[in-house]
């Protein structure tokens, strides 16, 4: 039976793992992720969820446990945050290279030092090149829906890659909102039992991910790149199918809002995308042609979708909750890279905002938009990268 509950994004990630009939969960606590695995512990303890719940001694071990479990051909889940994700780094490559469709909730939290428990994307974006698919969510409902969509995608035989479902700490992780949980029967028909691409079997022993000499290594790497391209094609299809079945759809790779005739497009990730929509509505009332494009999937990066937005737009503004020190935000880099070599490309202004959990409100985004519109009119982007609301 479908039910509407009022709960946090972390608990909804737990509900999603249960709904996906996950068979192995590796759990290690870290703020602000802990309540994800706490919720799952509750489900396993009270018998609502039939899963092995492995309490490990570190995040590196959590990922090692997930890799081993997934290698036996079962659906596997874990969750982490910030320094925990960083500690997993080496194992993340083993998961993707072994082509194991593990799904992990990453509750975004700034990397120290200085110590912080509040959100930015410095943790998950540091893992950009690990071969993991990366989703970024803007609401509690989207977290639940994306965990299910991620399994559907990752277990597709044209993909077989792991995925991170990222959500910002506290803004979503500990905030209660209403959310719909579809009936188990409908979820089961969307997400059938997992069929692995290969698996460990005691009757037919193999060892995996072994030494590959230089003459074949590149081909294995290319197969991951192909899988990412396949994912880029499949994500919008899966999102549409999910929307038809359950009523929630997120624009596939990019959630576009009032972009059709926009002079200026605002690029965001995560919850900033929701605030951007409010800012767009307000500015539209003032007669300003502004649109919002929330990048929902950062890897694979939706280059083609970005190019489709060139159309009328004379100006792109990227808002990064992240900084690649010595350069700019990753979103700015990827957007500029997508535009290179295209005709009549808009100018791009990069903004850094919301690091370490500083609030990015719709007013902040409006301010960013108005500065960008000014530069659009004068034809000159005066600062390559603007740190929003930085103290003098």
């Amino acid at each position, binding site marked *: 039976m479908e039910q509407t509950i009022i709960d946090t994004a972390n608990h909804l990630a737990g509900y999603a793992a249960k709904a996906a009939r996950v068979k192995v969960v590796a759990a290690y606590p870290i703020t602000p992720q802990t309540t994800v695995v706490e919720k799952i512990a509750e489900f396993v303890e009270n018998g609502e969820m039939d899963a092995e719940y492995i309490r490990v001694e570190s995040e590196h071990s959590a990922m090692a446990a997930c890799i081993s479990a997934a290698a036996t051909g079962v659906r596997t889940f874990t969750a982490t945050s910030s320094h925990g994700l960083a500690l997993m780094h080496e194992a993340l490559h083993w998961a993707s*290279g*072994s*082509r194991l469709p593990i799904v992990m909730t990453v509750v975004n939290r700034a990397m120290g030092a200085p110590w912080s428990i509040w959100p930015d994307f410095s943790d998950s974006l540091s893992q950009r090149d690990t071969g993991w698919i990366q989703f970024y969510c803007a609401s509690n409902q989207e977290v639940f829906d994306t965990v299910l969509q991620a399994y559907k995608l990752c277990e597709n035989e044209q993909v*077989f890659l792991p995925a991170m479902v990222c959500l910002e700490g506290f803004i979503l992780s500990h905030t209660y909102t209403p959310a719909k949980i579809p009936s188990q029967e409908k979820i089961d028909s969307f997400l059938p039992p997992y069929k692995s*691409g*290969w698996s460990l079997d005691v009757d037919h*022993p*193999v*060892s*995996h*991910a*072994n*030494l*590959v000499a230089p003459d*074949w290594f590149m*081909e*294995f790497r*290319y*197969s991951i790149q192909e899988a990412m391209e396949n994912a880029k094609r499949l994500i919008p299809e899966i999102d549409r199918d999910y929307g038809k079945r359950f009523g929630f759809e997120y624009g596939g790779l990019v959630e576009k809002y009032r972009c059709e005739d926009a002079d200026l497009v605002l690029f965001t990730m995560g919850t900033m995308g929701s605030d951007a929509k409010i800012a767009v509505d307000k500015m539209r009332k003032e007669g300003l042609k502004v649109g919002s494009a929330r990048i929902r999937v950062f890897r694979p990066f939706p280059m083609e979708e970005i190019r489709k937005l060139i159309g009328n737009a004379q100006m792109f503004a990227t808002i990064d909750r992240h900084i690649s020190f010595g350069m700019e935000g990753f979103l700015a880099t990827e957007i500029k890279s997508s535009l290179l070599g295209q005709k009549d490309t808009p100018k791009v202004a990069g903004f850094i905002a919301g690091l370490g959990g500083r609030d990015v409100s719709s007013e902040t985004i409006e301010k960013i938009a108005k500065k960008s519109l000014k530069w659009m009119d004068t034809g000159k982007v005066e600062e390559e990268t603007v740190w929003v609301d930085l103290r003098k």
Partner: protein
Amino acid sequence: MSKVPKSRKDLPLTPLSYPTFGSMGKTGSWRTFRPEVDYSKCTKCTICWVYCPDAAITRQNDDSPKIDYDYCKGCGICANECPVKAIKMRREEE
């Protein structure tokens, strides 16, 4: 060694190896020290057979160990584990 792929289409998702004898060749040539069993001291407890990391020790019919010198790398774990010191490590040139 498993079969060598001809093109990318033949590749598995991840490289898989099947159990086989000595896919790296005869690794006994790596040895500096050679384990030698004194069968008069051996109690046939099979501990050396359990501990050999290269499965280069087999159990004979009477449970006494037989070392396969084609693959024994001379790590000395068997000699270290033997509870009655029935295995001695000697330099190859001796």
